[in-house]
């Protein structure tokens, strides 16, 4: 069996205790909630932390509140809970759908919203055992200097692979971040701004910082939306491509729209020009085609994901059309 590396297992009793630890040992700590991604990554020696900080039992991070200003979610809300909640299903159906398309039932029972949001980027040359990566020659994301996806590249292009993140961006959601210093510091950023285009570390969390909440604003309630995930199997697989679409409808015509395509690069790509394309039009097939064309032009899948790159690019068209159509059906 693949072994876990040696580490000290810490289980803080409160968020403050966790942050206190992180204030001292941020660089050598790995935060684990459900563990569905962290544990295999530990076994692959992708993380070799001195401390594994288990936050999965912190009640203060486990909440789901439907309030007038919007939906407040704790990072420990499991993907199953997000999938099954009636109001999430009614008000943000595509978010519930995206969460329900992660892996399989057992993994959704353990996997958390925060964990999915902070999911390490994935690459066919990175998510492998130590032996395999040694045979390859280590890559620049971990222990090496070379990128095997873009041989001349200096920047890691491992793929953002979260299912909930693209949908949260389409819904204009925000992330609350707690910093260990000064104690009690909180800040909020949009989920869009949470991610950066660096496959080694693809979000704005500074060492020791943690996601403490996700907020979906009330104005996103009842948006017409769709989420499409391309994957070889009907369960388990990470997205080979994902498309999240949300539009505000005024009667039959579109007032504003947002399209996010992911699993192609280190961060989700918000397709530009969609608002202009869609505004004032009904979401008919012609609109769907136009939006799909715009997405296709801006998306260039790489071989970071182990599935035919040309095919994935072609599917940007199909998945986008389907996401728009799905939104139309819902609206």
């Amino acid at each position, binding site marked *: *069996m693949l072994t876990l590396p040696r580490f000290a297992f810490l289980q803080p009793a409160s968020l403050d205790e966790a942050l206190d630890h992180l204030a001292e040992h941020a660089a050598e700590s790995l935060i684990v909630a459900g563990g569905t991604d962290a544990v295999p990554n530990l076994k692959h020696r992708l993380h070799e932390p001195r401390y594994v900080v288990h936050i999965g039992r912190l009640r203060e991070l486990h909440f789901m509140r439907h309030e007038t200003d919007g939906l407040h979610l704790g990072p420990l809300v499991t993907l199953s809970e997000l999938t099954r909640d009636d109001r999430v299903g009614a008000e943000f159906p595509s978010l519930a759908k995206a969460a329900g398309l992660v892996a399989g039932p057992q993994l959704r029972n353990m996997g958390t919203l925060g964990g999915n949001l902070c999911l390490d980027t994935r690459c*066919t040359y990175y998510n492998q055992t130590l032996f395999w990566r040694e045979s390859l020659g280590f890559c620049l994301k971990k222990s090496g200097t070379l990128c*095997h996806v873009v041989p001349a590249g200096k920047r890691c292009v491992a793929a953002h692979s979260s299912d909930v993140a693209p949908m949260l961006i389409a819904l204009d959601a925000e992330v609350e971040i707690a910093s260990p210093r000064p104690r009690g510091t909180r800040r909020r950023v949009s989920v869009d701004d949470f991610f950066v285009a660096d496959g080694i570390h693809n979000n704005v969390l500074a060492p020791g910082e943690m996601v403490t909440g996700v907020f979906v604003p009330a104005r996103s309630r009842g948006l017409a939306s769709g989420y499409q995930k391309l994957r*070889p*199997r009907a*369960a388990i697989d990470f997205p080979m491509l994902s498309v999240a679409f949300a539009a505000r409808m005024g009667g039959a015509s579109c007032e504003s729209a947002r399209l996010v395509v992911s699993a192609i690069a280190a961060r989700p790509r918000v397709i530009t020009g969609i608002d202009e394309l869609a505004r004032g039009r009904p979401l008919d097939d012609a609109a769907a085609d136009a939006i799909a064309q715009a997405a296709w032009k801006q998306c260039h899948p790489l071989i970071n994901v182990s599935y035919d790159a040309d*095919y994935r690019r072609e599917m940007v068209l199909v998945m986008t059309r389907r996401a728009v159509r799905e939104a139309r059906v819902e609206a």
Partner: protein
Amino acid sequence: MKGKPGRAAAGSKGAKSAPGPRGTPEIPADRMMPAERRLEPPRWPGGRSAPPGSTFAVIGKRNRKVEGLAKVTGRAIYADDITLPRMLHGKLLRSIHAHARIKSIDASAALALPGVHAVITGKDLPEYYGIIPWTQDEQALCEEKARYVGDAIAAVAADSELIAEEALRLIRVEYEPLPAAMSIDESLAHPEYRINEKAREGNISKQVRLEFGDVGAALERSDAVVEGEYWYEGSTHAPIEPHCAVADFDATGFLTLISSTQVAHYLHRDLARVLGLPTQRIRVIQPVVGGAFGGKSEAFSLEFCAAKLSMVTGRPVKILYTREEVFYAHRGRHPMRLRYRTGIRRDGTLTGTDALIHIDGGAYSSFGLVTTYYSGQLLTAPYRMGAYRFDSTRVFTNKPCCGPKRGHGSVQPRFAFECQIDKLAEAIGMDPFEVRRRNTMDSNSRTVNDLRVTSNGFLECLAAAERASEWGRKFRRLPYGRGVGMAGSMYISGTNYCIYPNEMPQSAVQLKLDRSGRATVFCGASDIGQGSDSVLAYIVCEELGLTLGDVRVVAADTDLTPVDLGSYSSRETFMVGNACLDAARKLRNDIAGVLAGEWGCPPEAVTLAGGVACSMRDPQRHAMSVRDAFQLAESRLGTLGSVGWYQSPKLGGDYRGGTIGASPAYSFTAHVAEVECDPETGRVGVKKIWIAHDCGRALSPVAVEGQMEGSAYMGFAEALMEEQVFKPAAPGHGPGLHDGPSLLDYRIPTSLDTPDLESLIVESVDPEGPYGAKEAGEGPLHPSIPAIANAIYDALGIRCDRLPFYPPAVMRLLKAGEARSRWERARAQVAPAVGAAAGRPR
């Protein structure tokens, strides 16, 4: 093993011919088979297919599997569940190069690590081994050269797996990388690479050319000839349980090896050979196995290394492969490139077939000699082939070694050939079912390559699949994107020779009856989940009137059980079943004889069933429990026990290789697959597969259905998804890295992807099988793949001649043009008229 004609043979001859020096009586002539004949099993009134009494009490019922409860409650003991006192953990160091000379190995730093007890390298286990005696080309640890990424180089024993892993990282290996061949064409183009130096020539592992009849003339005389090139991608078995072995070499010099294997007997022999121990000082135990599918049918590095490390340290050693290592151990389905030319006459008669096959074997031979023969030999039923020629070449490449996977060697050619027939049927405008019916060979006939076919239920399989799937209503009639396809096949029920030449039985059973009313069956058979333990229990219950709870099966333990060759080539039900039937029938007859004497009735009137023995003449008066019957018999006859064994008759054609493919019985299968394709994404959804399979007689229909469904599922998985492939070399790295040695990246369909599977059991009642049974574990896999390919053609007008039919490949074919018009032309063809004339149900 070379035979030694000298002293041993002379000695035994002497013992047979004359009384021994102390006046030992001569063995009666009727007990001893003349040397020129094979052993013949006893003949029973009514034949082997008949029940012991008037009807079956257990056989044919939907019986539970004997080990089922232990498995589902987590009480079954697998190899990794076993922990012995003072046990160490072993790990293997593996090559990071696809092909490299090993210049030096320095393990001093590893040995210095606290908790490390031993490090061994190729020099410690230099003996070559291999499942086929003529192609022994493997070492437990590479001594001179590594031949694929993952080839084992050294082994460590340590206090824990983690320490062993850390020790591996401290072993310094100096490599000299060599050029590597990753494909059939590279291997053929570079004979100078000498990937496997045991090859007689270049990188050729085995070549077989056989011709039966005049193929050229036959194709000339055809009304239509179809040529096709097919590619079958390799795949691996992926049993849920990784390989695991626990070795214990004790202070008396006795080695016990507990291993997740499906061939305990062959492993026993190979251990003796490589470790230099006499076989009688080795005990091999197979615990409960969590699936194998052919992937555990020879000895592996971990078994030798665990044993050697135990010998070196004097402590038990366990080695458990990681999932990644299971992909490197492999022995999975060979990638094959198959070129076929097949001819047909307008009336549907197949005229001739010309096959050119290239087989990618990976770095070692494994069963490759057999694979190469099977790629041609097993195609010759259920159809009369006309003339037939095949030219098969297996080559070595710098990849994990391929071997036998469920449907060994014959799944790939079957895929190609059944697609060929579909194309031929279209070419002459005949329904694919009708073409197959018209060419189906008779029962009790011989194939073009001289295989003896006895029972044959293929026509019934065709009828069952056609009827259940409502073929006539669907074929060429479903809307664009949906379609149906069909295919047929045959497979062996065991091979007629042992892998190493000998004239001893292929299977044997010892049966012990206890005065408690309990029976214990001792048999070397290997239950890998397919149910051979259950088959043994059913047969004993049937013969002795017991219920399943009163039979214990002790299997696959070389100290306790008589030899059975193991679970491969679908041999267990047929051969073990026959051995067990004879052992049990002998005891039954003894008991019936005693009871008949007691009750004053003829022995035929004695019935044993459901725990009760009675006379059918007067069941009210003459009845007792089976336990009382056992006790009565024991008091009259002495301790109750018996043996049974099986050896197949001499079979096969009179030409070199003519016995390879010969089996005492063949199973037959027909599938219909229905697909629903998404032309926008290329995704093929298989909605349903109807599986009609002739298993002779279903000893337990629920177990047979399990094998049929599992087989169809595995074929479907290979058709759509599974592929054991490797990353190409790139500026940063050499070739030979597995594309993704994990169950995340090596994609096996989930339950959500799996089609509905409907099993249709056909029973042809084989004259030589136990109660008429034949195999069901591998045959039903074969037609899955071509049936799906043919259904995709019906749905989209594209011919999927390369596996897997995954969405990017389907999209490429759809875009290649003409697909839609081909689809329309096929529909316009009036194929069904022929079928209607043959009176097919509509």
